[in-house]
């Protein structure tokens, strides 16, 4: 008998929740392929370590961008491997609930469900990430009060107001942590004349990146390839530089939160002031981001206890209570 699954198919990480067992898999959404034969060489952590360090015949790719499938075949193979790793075989076909960005198009929705079905799922239902995040973050969404959740992922940032188990207002932008990494890469290339990789940019973000000034700031040395000479070169970056480099991206995220607040019914506005907004997703871990949102909206911002797992736990709760929570799935609302 197949155990039903909830999958948070994120641009950065993929998490799988198995009914009755909890989170059974948590790894980067990366797959390494042999360019010539198309064979899968590695997935997850192993493939992530290969990014930017592969010989010509290997390509390590993220098959999702902005929360949407950019390469259908590769995504299907990745989902198939994920399902195999958690014990799904051709004889045990589970029901699957997949978390997707709320802004995905009808075509993108179909791509995700088709990929899951072809990979071995008996049935595939979709749930919006901010809704799943609110369930997983233990917000009192069953009550007639305004709950606001900001989910900042690798490729999308979504803000939702939820009351009585449904979405009241929603605002999504296809901007996330990867855009912050790209902004750092571009800045270092433009201002210091050196090329750095995706992973190095991410390490800089984690080490000294911030959205607002924070105490105990330090500088960081970064090494890359000099664009003029082609030789390795090291430069020192300051937190102020990185704040400047990522300001455009951070501003887009903050503005989407402001737009969502403006869309929410006036009756719920007082709830936000007393209850605050909840930040989930890996992008929410950027230093100073909560403070920056709080300053610009004048609404308290709180960090979820499990920012990286909230979405899959919420979808997992839907799998545990599949019949009672059917109306949460996209396309099932009456």
């Amino acid at each position, binding site marked *: 008998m197949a155990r039903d699954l909830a999958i*948070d198919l*994120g*641009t*950065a*990480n*993929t*998490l799988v929740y198995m009914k*009755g*067992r*909890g*989170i*059974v*898999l*948590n*790894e*980067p959404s990366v797959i390494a392929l042999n360019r010539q034969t198309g064979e899968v060489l590695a997935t*997850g*952590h*192993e493939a*992530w*370590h290969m990014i930017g360090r592969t010989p010509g015949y290997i390509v390590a790719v993220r098959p999702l961008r902005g929360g949407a499938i950019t390469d259908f075949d590769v995504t299907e193979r990745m989902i198939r491997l994920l399902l195999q790793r958690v014990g799904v075989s051709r004889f045990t076909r589970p029901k699957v609930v997949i978390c997707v960005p709320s802004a995905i198009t009808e075509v993108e929705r179909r791509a995700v469900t088709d990929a899951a079905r072809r990979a071995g799922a008996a049935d595939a239902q979709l749930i919006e990430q901010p809704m799943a995040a609110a*369930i*997983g973050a*233990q917000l*009192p*969404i*069953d009550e007639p009060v305004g709950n606001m959740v900001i*989910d*900042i*992922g*690798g490729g999308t940032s979504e803000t939702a107001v939820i009351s*009585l*188990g449904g979405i009241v207002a929603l605002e999504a932008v296809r901007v*996330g*942590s*990867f855009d912050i*990494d790209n902004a750092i890469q571009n800045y270092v290339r433009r201002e210091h004349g050196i090329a750095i990789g995706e*992973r190095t940019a*991410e390490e800089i*973000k*984690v080490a000294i990146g911030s959205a607002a000034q924070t105490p105990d700031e330090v500088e960081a040395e970064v090494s890359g390839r000099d664009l003029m000479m082609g030789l390795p070169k090291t430069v020192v970056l300051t937190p102020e530089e990185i704040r400047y480099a990522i300001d455009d991206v951070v501003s887009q995220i903050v503005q989407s939160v402001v737009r969502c607040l403006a869309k929410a019914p006036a009756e719920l506005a007082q709830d936000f002031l007393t209850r605050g907004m909840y930040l989930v*997703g*890996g*992008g*929410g*871990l950027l230093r100073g981001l909560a403070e920056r949102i709080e300053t610009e909206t004048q609404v308290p911002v709180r960090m979820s206890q*499990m920012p*990286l*797992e909230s*979405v*899959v*736990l919420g979808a*997992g*709760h839907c799998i*545990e*209570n599949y019949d*009672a*929570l059917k*109306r949460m799935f996209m396309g099932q609302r009456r």
Partner: protein
Amino acid sequence: MVYILLAVVVICVVVFAVLATSRRTPTSNDSVADFQRHLNALSPEARRHTVENYPVVTSPTEETEEPDDGA
């Protein structure tokens, strides 16, 4: 003969009752109960079971190095 007729009547009544139950249109009471069931399944008590009762399983490699981006 009477017993056979009686049996046929009983079977017809049972079949009619089953069909009537399965084909009846949803009433407003059904939708109220359904919505209540939906809200009950979203209550903090119901969710605590999912979030707290099951441990988060991490892979061995994840403990050494992990990308920090959002899911």
